[in-house]
């Protein structure tokens, strides 16, 4: 990003709701089934068919609104009219000037806030595949349409143009995804298309300038692509403006292979969708009781879960600043329950967090399979000194691989026991005696040679010795 310029980003995220059935009919909402097997008169748009709104979809949309701190209000549905083969009725039922959720915000882990203008409901289209060399629209001879996805419920979340860096955009997408999953609304699989992100990008020289002309970037299949595309596009626009050109309002397609955005069509002449109130549906007026009921049944959101871990660290007198990444990792992977269980059983928050963020995080499903009881038993063995850190990691590794197991039994089977004090002193003395030069240098102040001796003692005891105890003994000998 060139100095002297600021990028302005707004993100539009389409999220497929995790309902059993489609938005307006009882067809299964399933990904990957045989083409055109989950269809009916309604989602095929057959003559005479009529839509009926899915209650669960409304509740999930309300949950999203709640999670994003929106105002949930009476709303109506409108028809967005345009011809396209994946649009079964050649209009989409959506929400226009009276959407369900408005005026919210999303707080990011770094402390910044992004405004949420709206999060409304609409139906998804069918899927087209293009027959031709590249599989893309351009150059295809003909296309094939599958309506299994037609009518699947979507919530479109539109952010305010508050995002100022590619990193912030990535953080927004990541946090939003975690929220969508936590609220039960979506499985958040960008790669499967259940969460689709489009970016509106413009640039300006300073924050006091008005917004520049923006371009909409589509085809972003991962958080990484999102970041790369935003940076590319901002640079592209800056280069254009610096050379005296102007930015045309366009929709652009991100080409992951080429690493650039390509113009699809000019958005100068906005399409006339002729929005009008959907006569086949009636207004949605959720009362306070219903809104409260939805809010009550929602899971705890990521921000709250992170705050809980930070609270535990603070209570345990641990530093929180250096642990922010660990906290984020553990919550992101859904392993914070394990940390909470360990702390409740008396394990230090720092240890519980470290072991979970570093070791358990290598295989979250296996960690969940192990379950809190066994996991906490293992951490307790390390916390009370029965196992050294190295030993504990080894036992945990075995438990993860097996998806379970009794830590005490595994430790015994591997011959891990705490070394006796005498045995440790004797082994350290042996190592010191065998290396008088190094001992001399350590005794004279070369502290880093403690590592040399620790390594020898570890080797001699096959990892059974506790690193901290070795260091303490070396210092004792030196003094």
């Amino acid at each position: 990003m060139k100095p002297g310029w600021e990028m302005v980003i707004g993100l539009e995220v389409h999220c497929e709701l995790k309902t059993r059935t489609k938005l307006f009919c009882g067809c299964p909402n399933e990904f990957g089934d045989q083409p055109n097997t989950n269809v009916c008169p309604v989602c095929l748009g057959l003559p005479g068919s009529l839509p009926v709104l899915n209650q669960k979809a409304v509740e999930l949309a309300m949950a999203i609104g709640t999670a994003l701190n929106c105002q949930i209000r009476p709303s109506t549905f409108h028809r967005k009219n345009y011809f396209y083969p994946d649009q079964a009725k050649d209009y989409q039922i959506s929400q226009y000037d009276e959407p369900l959720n408005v005026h919210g915000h999303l707080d990011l882990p770094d402390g910044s806030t992004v405004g949420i203008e709206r999060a409304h409901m609409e139906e998804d289209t069918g899927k087209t595949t293009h027959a031709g060399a590249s599989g893309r629209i351009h150059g295809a001879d003909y296309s094939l349409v599958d309506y299994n996805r037609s009518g699947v419920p979507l919530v479109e979340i539109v952010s305010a143009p508050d995002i100022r860096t590619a990193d912030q955009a990535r953080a927004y997408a990541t946090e939003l995804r975690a929220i969508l999953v936590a609220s039960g609304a979506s499985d958040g699989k960008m790669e499967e298309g259940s969460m689709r992100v489009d970016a509106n990008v413009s640039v300006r020289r300073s924050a006091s300038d008005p917004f520049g002309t923006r371009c909409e970037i589509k085809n972003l299949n991962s958080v990484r692509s999102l970041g790369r595309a935003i940076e590319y596009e901002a640079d592209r626009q800056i280069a254009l403006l610096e050379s005296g050109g102007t930015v045309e309002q366009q929709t652009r397609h991100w080409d992951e292979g080429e690493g650039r955005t390509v113009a699809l069509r000019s958005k100068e002449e906005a399409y006339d969708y002729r929005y009008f109130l959907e006569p086949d549906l009636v207004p949605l007026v959720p009362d306070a009781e219903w809104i409260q009921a939805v809010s009550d049944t929602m899971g705890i959101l990521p921000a709250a879960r992170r705050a809980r871990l930070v609270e535990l660290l603070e209570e345990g007198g641990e530093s929180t600043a250096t642990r922010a990444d660990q906290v984020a990792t553990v919550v992101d992977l859904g392993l914070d329950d394990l940390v909470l269980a360990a702390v409740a059983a008396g394990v230090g928050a720092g240890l519980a967090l470290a072991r979970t963020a570093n070791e358990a995080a290598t295989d979250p499903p296996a960690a969940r399979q192990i379950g809190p009881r066994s996991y906490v038993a293992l951490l307790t063995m390390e916390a009370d000194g029965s196992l050294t850190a190295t030993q504990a990691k080894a036992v945990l590794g075995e438990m993860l691989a097996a998806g379970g197991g009794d830590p005490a039994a595994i430790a015994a089977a591997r011959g891990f026991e705490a070394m006796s004090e005498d045995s440790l002193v004797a082994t350290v003395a042996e190592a010191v005696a065998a290396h008088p030069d190094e001992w001399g240098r350590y005794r004279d102040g070369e502290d880093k040679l403690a590592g040399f001796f620790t390594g020898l003692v570890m080797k001699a005891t096959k990892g059974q010795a506790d690193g901290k105890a070795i260091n303490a003994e070396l210092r004792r000998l030196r003094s």
Partner: protein
Amino acid sequence: MTDRPARLTRDEVAHVAALARLELTAEELDLFTGQLAQVLDHAADVSSLDLAGVAPTAHAMAVTNVLRPDEVRPGLDRPEVLAQAPSVEDDRFRVPRILGDAP
């Protein structure tokens, strides 16, 4: 809001026909422009009224919150659906070349 719109022109009819995916011959364009202009002239008695403050009625019967449970219901058999399709390939509806993305 109640300014009377200008009389419908041939160009506007052509534009609207394209928007509706209809192709008209030159004669049809002339004929329809005349007929539609007449209808709209007649409708001018509506567009010229001062109805500020009157709420539009989109639904004659004031009903809200019509919902259905999130339960699977039997759909259509694929063969019966595809039997009515003008062109089928690989159990999908086949269409000629699509020129661009959806608007």
